[in-house]
């Protein structure tokens, strides 16, 4: 074998070894960066959405519905302070749903979303008003949007008594869809055996134009 070829092969072999070593260190650095991003997210939440505490708080087990696989949500029991006031209780639960998923894969709502307001009307209608991030940061798709709405509805119905239906607002407004697919113009049934369904209000005057036939 010519000497030049031997040198080239040697250099290439050395390069491969160096490449493999550097690949491992690059991989470790990427992991560290991902961890720091999670820490940044937690810190941002601590500032923007500080924990809600009320005088009637009692530490109890709450069922919070996070993603369990690609296409369903499942309850996770979490011990957390829960208020006796249903409005504050709902706010505590939804904040936990956004901020504290056990793993990143179980997240159903965008990390940057915040609950701007929560109200309960005398007829049992719950109104949850979220920040724009719940729409703008939501991965578009029927599957992801349906999972997000299900996690909100089922967390509320499992932990707050007396709720009949849920209306989701974004930035104080009724919006057509969550992120391009799931209808938010209606209400979602709560405390039903089946998955929550949007309930559409029948308006006294039919809107124009009407579909053909």
């Amino acid at each position, binding site marked *: 074998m010519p000497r030049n070829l031997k040198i080239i092969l040697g250099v*290439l072999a050395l*390069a*491969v070894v*160096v*490449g493999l070593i*550097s*690949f491992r*260190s*690059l991989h470790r*650095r990427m992991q560290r960066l991902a961890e*720091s991003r999670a*820490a*940044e997210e*937690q*810190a*941002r939440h*601590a*500032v923007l959405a500080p924990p809600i505490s009320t005088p009637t708080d009692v530490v109890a087990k709450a069922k919070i519905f996070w993603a369990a696989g*690609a*296409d369903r949500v499942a309850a996770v029991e979490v011990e957390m302070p829960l208020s006796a006031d249903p409005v504050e209780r709902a706010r505590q639960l939804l904040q936990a749903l956004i901020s504290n998923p056990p793993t990143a894969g179980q997240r159903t709502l965008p990390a940057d979303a915040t609950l701007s307001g929560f109200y309960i009307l005398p007829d049992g209608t719950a109104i949850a008003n979220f920040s724009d991030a719940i729409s703008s940061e939501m*991965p*578009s*798709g*029927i*599957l*992801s949007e*349906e*999972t997000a*709405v299900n996690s909100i509805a089922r967390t509320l119905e499992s932990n707050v008594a007396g709720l009949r*239906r849920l209306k989701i607002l974004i930035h104080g407004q009724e919006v*057509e*869809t969550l992120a*391009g*697919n*799931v*209808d938010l*113009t*209606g*209400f*979602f*049934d709560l405390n039903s055996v089946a*998955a*929550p*369904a*949007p*309930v*559409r*209000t*029948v*308006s*006294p*005057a*039919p*809107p124009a134009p*009407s*579909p*053909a*036939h």
Partner: protein
Amino acid sequence: MLRRNLSAFPVPSRRGISDILCAVRNFVLCPALFLVAAACCLISVVRPSRSLAQQSEPQPAPQQEPAPPAPTAPSGLVIVLDPAHGGTDTGARGENGVAEKDIVLQIARAVREQLAKQGYRVLMTRNDDSNPSYDERAAIADAYHDAIFVSLHVSSTGTSGSVHTYFDQIGAPVPVPPPAAAPGTKAITPPTNGLTAWEDAQRPYIDVSHRLADLIQADLAQSFSGSPTASVAAPVRALRAVTGPAVAVELSSVSGSTPDSLNAAEGPLSAAIGHGIAELRQAVSTGGR
């Protein structure tokens, strides 16, 4: 408290810069990685150029043109394919820049061709990068006495290569009580004029939509591993104003699949839609809605 929280934010440090420099140096020092990168680039250049060539093929004929009649498909039936999103609404976006609106348009064109070969008359709610409103899309199906609406989607999430079929999920209507009449006046009740409200258009067709969605999903579950065997009820906005059987089919996903693998779904998808519609027609056998 605030100070402690703020200190948790990462601050760019000298160590961070030296990390980046180290990484760059490692890259320079290893030609083997360059060779691998060059090979990857070559592959990625070759593959998109192939899909671009497919895109630049002449557009199919205008959507209103009826398909040649065939003995298998009923003559009055119209299938309305709805490629979701469009225009500034890109829908789901993959890491490699793939947009749902482009993928679903390509799939819809291919499905349209396949269904037309089976003798169906097929229309599309869009055949370019436009974004008609939900009600405009529904109105295309609503204009026909015997139409089936199929909305096509690609998700951001989900098990890669799986497919879900949805039908609209509607709760019981909540009637709004008429306004109370002032003392001494007669209460005015809203007139019932027999017109269907847009938001309730799908309500009478939920059962038949559910049946169609189940038939399509059962077929898809055989071709796409990881897919459920039954359809799912979901409040899909695109289906709400359709006065006829309406389903949404969503492939997973833009982030876990390549454009080529998503386009490869065209065949099984059109077969499942065709089978589902044929079986539904056979089961209902009323000839209309």
